[in-house]
């Protein structure tokens, strides 16, 4: 739970970096502007979360999904975000899948001797 309001702040250094990346190299940002952007970002996250939650509830879902968020963004007039986020999401899903597979492979190596044995058995049968 949120105990202090500061718990909702995003780290200044990261916000500063993100801002810097989106401005021309020689441009700068005032401290006040940076603070306002940081606050706006927290509010944005809350806004999108509660709108997505409402959308999920409307469909009788308890848990919000990635799809809810993307749809909410489009509804809130941020459809320009959707294509690149969709791509990021694909990369993320692939990463999670690869991780799972490599884990499964590791587990498999211990039992692979059995698998090998049975597969040779199958091969032998096939030869006959």
């Amino acid at each position, binding site marked *: 739970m949120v105990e202090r309001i500061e718990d909702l702040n995003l780290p200044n250094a990261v*916000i500063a970096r993100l801002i810097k990346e989106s401005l*021309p190299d020689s*441009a700068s940002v*005032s401290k006040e502007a940076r603070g306002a952007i940081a606050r706006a970002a927290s509010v944005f*996250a809350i806004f999108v*979360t509660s709108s997505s*939650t409402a959308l999920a509830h409307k469909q009788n879902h308890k848990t919000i999904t*990635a799809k809810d968020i993307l749809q909410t963004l489009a509804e*809130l007039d941020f459809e320009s975000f959707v294509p690149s*986020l969709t791509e990021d999401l694909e990369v993320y899903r692939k990463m999670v899948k690869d991780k799972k597979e490599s884990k499964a492979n590791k587990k498999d190596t211990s039992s692979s001797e059995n698998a090998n044995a049975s597969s040779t058995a199958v091969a032998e049968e096939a030869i006959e």
Partner: protein
Amino acid sequence: MGEPKIQSPVERAPNAETVLPLSRVRTIMKSSMDTGLITNEVLFLMTKCTELFVRHLAGEAYVDAFPQKNSETLKYEHLSQLVNKSKNLEFLLQIVPEKIRVHEFQEMLRLNRSAGSDDDDSESGSESDE
């Protein structure tokens, strides 16, 4: 000098890395009432989305204020101007309000009073003290 070289926040190579801390974004999401379970995938997407929003807000405000200049300082008023004119940033009107001068505010109060002197429960002052 040509136009400022600002990479559009939308044209970046897709990636699965986040720079904002996931745990903090989770706390922020939880603060919104009624949020059920937050899956890792949803947390990832919301974090990415918030990062994109920061880039978008900063980039847009800058280009808007300085369409042809590369080495200016982005200030608070550029943000509040953008918020004021963008429909999709309406939810920030209270968060990034336009600043007004004290004498302008007093003038507004005075006009308010003379306009509607019968309803004196004016809340007009409550939001402008930041």
